[in-house]
């Protein structure tokens, strides 16, 4: 009579024990999402609402002002924001490519995709720093409600990019330690969902703050 553990001990790189219990059951439908994915989707919805209210505040303040942006402040340039958009979109593609790889068990592809995504995300932040550096010489957030809401909205987005980069870095370290394989990669899926979301928010910001002033 020997005692045997019912579940393998949990540790990095091994299958998580929930999977062992799965053998008790018929195989799950392949498309069903993990509960962590649902939570991240709802968190993104919550954050999307946050940015929606910021953008609504931008337009509300604009509608109540005779000139928007006010006299003395030029309409924002489009060139730099479009380059920034390109870096974020490419970074989303890179992360997607990495996630696509780990679904097929390719750890190298995951690590490469995450690394490229992080590098492009850092480029975005560097470009935003440059944009702020330029703009702050012309107007401060305390100058008028326009720069106040401009810096607040873009600044909060930049903070979300930074937070997304921390998450990507976290997953990157776990990927290097071999935590993920073809079956267990929940954290990769949730992080990439958040990263795509941050990307979408940027596009909404570009359209409302950078592009829309060209039409009035």
């Amino acid at each position: 009579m020997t005692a045997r553990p019912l579940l393998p001990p949990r540790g990095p790189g091994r299958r998580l024990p929930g999977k062992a219990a799965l053998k008790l059951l018929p195989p799950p439908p392949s498309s069903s999402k993990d509960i962590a994915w649902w939570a991240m989707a709802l968190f993104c919805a919550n954050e999307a609402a946050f940015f929606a209210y910021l953008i609504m505040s931008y337009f509300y303040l604009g509608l109540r002002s005779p000139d928007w942006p006010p006299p003395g402040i030029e309409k924002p340039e489009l060139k730099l924001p479009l380059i920034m958009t390109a870096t974020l979109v490419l970074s989303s593609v890179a992360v997607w490519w990495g996630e696509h790889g780990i679904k097929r068990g390719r750890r190298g592809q995951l690590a490469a995709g995450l690394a490229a995504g992080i590098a492009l995300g850092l480029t975005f932040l560097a470009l935003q720093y440059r944009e702020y550096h330029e703009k702050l010489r012309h107007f401060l957030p305390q100058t008028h409600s326009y720069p106040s809401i401009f810096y607040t909205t873009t600044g909060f987005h930049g903070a979300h990019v930074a937070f997304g980069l921390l998450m990507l870095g976290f997953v990157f370290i776990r990927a290097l330690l071999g935590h993920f394989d073809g079956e267990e990669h929940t954290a990769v899926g949730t992080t990439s969902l958040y990263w795509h979301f941050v990307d979408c928010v940027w596009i909404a910001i570009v359209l409302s703050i950078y592009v829309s002033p060209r039409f009035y």
Partner: protein
Amino acid sequence: MTTAVERVAEAPDHERLKALWETPHTWLAWLATVDHKKLGTRYIVTAFVFFVLGGLEAALMRMQLARPGQHLLSPEAYNQIFTMHGTTMMFLFIQPVLSGFSFYLTPLMIGSRELAFPRLNSFSYYAFLLAGIFLYASFFTGQAPNGGWFNYTPLTDRTFDPGLNIDFYAIGLLFLGTSTTAGAINSIVTILKLRAPGMSIDRMPLFLWSSLTMSVSVVFAMPALNVALVLLELQRRWGFHFFDAALGGTPLLWQHLFWVFGHPWVYIVFLPATGMLSMVIPTFSRRPMVGHNFVALATVLTGLVGFGVWVHHMFATGLPQLSMSFFSGASMTVSIPSAIQIFAWIGTMWYGRVVFRTPMLFAIAFVFQFVIGGISGVMTAAVPFDFQAHDTYFVVAHLHYVLVGGSAFAVFAALYYWYPKITGRMLGETLGRTSFWVMFVGFNVAFFPMHVSGLLGMPRRVYTYLPGLGLETANMLSTIGAVIFVIGIALTLWNVIASRYDGVPAGDDPWGAGTLEWATSSPPEDYNFGHIPIISSREPLWDGGITPGPAYDEGRLTPRTSPLDAELERVIEMPEDNLWTLVLAVALLVCSAGLLVRWDALAVAGFVASLLSMARWAWPSKGHKVLETEA
């Protein structure tokens, strides 16, 4: 022979499941527990502590207003007291107590062993507790929030309110918002993904429909308050311009953002109460709910319409006529889904055989008082009438009939109804009935005269009134009613404490109710269900729509099912107790305190600590309960 219900409750191997799910009896384990029953109970108890504090503030105001020209409270103290009364009741009592019942009951009602994210639940609780303490710490500095719970600018700009008062409010509520949002996401995923196999969405109890609607509303409404508070702090602390007309801002932006949040919030703190009623009334009418589907739809509809009526709080701000007409009409449509619910409750009683026990008395009083609050609501939704009633005691009467006569009475119904499940003992029935009648009389004597004082022109939020305006009788009546009401509440609180020790043992299903939470023992075992039930009806305990499924005792396991049909997808492992959630909540408290006292290094330290504790929390744990078994 045992029944199917008994077999669902009984574990094939009690010791084994208990070892997997129980919280050890140590102080550290007490802090680290993720058990939804323990945390739910703590939520309810903590919320009631804040209820007592908010009630004391209300009592102080009634003492001040009993007669004209009194000086019990200075005008400045009165401002702080009425602000903290509103803030406490809205944010620290009614929403958390409803969430607490939801966190306790949801897994039991859906046949699960836990909430979807037990550690997130632990974080929600600690963040709620610490944010409440943060807000109340303001009293020790003598600078409690003093801008009303709606906190209108420009009154709350630094120019007019230079102290820490408003910073306590803004930072405290941002901190509290993390708890509310986390709890809402947890509830939604639990309700959609952890229902027992077979409990398709149309078999789900109505309480869960209301808690689902409430949680979705929180996800989309809370950010509006967060944006408002962030902009306010940026303006107060760093001189940004959003709400001051001098440099392109507008005070109306605050009002829009606040009420875009605030009106959904009214339904957030009201809908779960209607859900509680839809559980209590069928049980004591001894029949299933009349119009179950319509009530579920009406609940969701109320939540949706709640996002389109915020301007009715702003009729007096001089908005365009067209806009006011639209929002007036939208506000009146709320009476349609509300009427569906009311007629469904009445229909259930009409076609049933009503048993008058304490929970049912509170439920019937809810219906009565909510109808009065609803009628005064339709009155104030009419723009011309609102011009007269705005900012008077008429509105105070209206909102208290809905939130106290409605929500709070439902909470008391829920307390009497589910207390036996939570503690294993019944609340005293005689004391309960006495308490109910005293509360019922006290509430109506306190709040009905406010309709009159409001119509006579008595303004809200003013610390006193002049003699000879005809307001003396109504105010004296209100104060007498408030005293009676407090006595009634005290009787129930005494009942809760005393019955804990000498209440009649309840048994599993003391009310003969039909829903799944009554299949567990009272109080439920650490693992809730010995066998995961398979459900095939709405009231499985009444019509036998329950079959014991597998025990899943190989680990901390619970099934995950599809969102609509509740088909089994897989069995998932639930996390174990941990302390990082508490560390995160404390780190956020440190960050909030740093922001409050404008010590940036402290705020940054708290922020970095919270990032690190989140990372530690998300890192896969090495330790794991491995069960030995005989080969």
